[in-house]
């Protein structure tokens, strides 16, 4: 069966450092891999999308890598700030519009 795994333990990090989150998947050939941010009491908000034929994507302080051989994506937040504290969700989707989300990793950035 298809599985998406993210670190279940919260990631505690000091302000200014780089946070790195991992998303591993099995039994899936996604067209897209996406990362979302979710704050308490709110719906997930899209951050970045990377296609199966892309290796890396950047947006401001965010960077995503995608290794379809390892079936893994890494999500980096550089120069982290307390405002980056949230739960980050990895999602796989195909061109038919089917999404599957990981359980998310909570990031806590302390001043």
């Amino acid at each position: 069966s298809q599985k998406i795994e993210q670190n279940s333990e919260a990631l505690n990090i000091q302000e200014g450092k780089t946070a790195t989150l991992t998303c591993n998947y099995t039994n899936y050939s996604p067209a897209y891999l996406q990362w979302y941010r979710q704050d308490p009491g709110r719906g997930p908000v899209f951050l970045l999308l990377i296609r199966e034929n892309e290796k890396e994507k950047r947006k401001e302080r965010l960077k995503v890598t995608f290794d379809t051989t390892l079936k893994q994506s890494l999500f980096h937040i550089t120069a982290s700030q307390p405002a980056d504290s949230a739960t980050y969700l990895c999602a796989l989707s195909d061109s038919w519009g089917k999404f599957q989300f990981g359980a998310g990793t909570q990031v806590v950035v302390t001043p």
Partner: protein
Amino acid sequence: DTAVSQTPKYLVTQMGNDKSIKCEQNLGHDTMYWYKQDSKKFLKIMFSYNNKELIINETVPNRFSPKSPDKAHLNLHINSLELGDSAVYFCASSQQGNEAFFGQGTRLTVV
């Protein structure tokens, strides 16, 4: 203008009741979804509609019935509510598996 709006935001009801949650998107997307997020924060897909047609129907009790009167609306009707139905329900939309936009969520509490 809110891209994906769902109502109500909070819903408290007794076991055995029937309730509906409404969702509308003004993004012109072809695909709409219903997700359930339980107490462990796992976001699980329930249904997906593409151009008013059901394309994904995960293992969900048949007490849950989605209705899509047009491609901008996807409502969720729940019959004979049970305690285990208590969760946050999110509506979302996307275009061909690209970034998904989520509503604010409906926190359903069954007492």
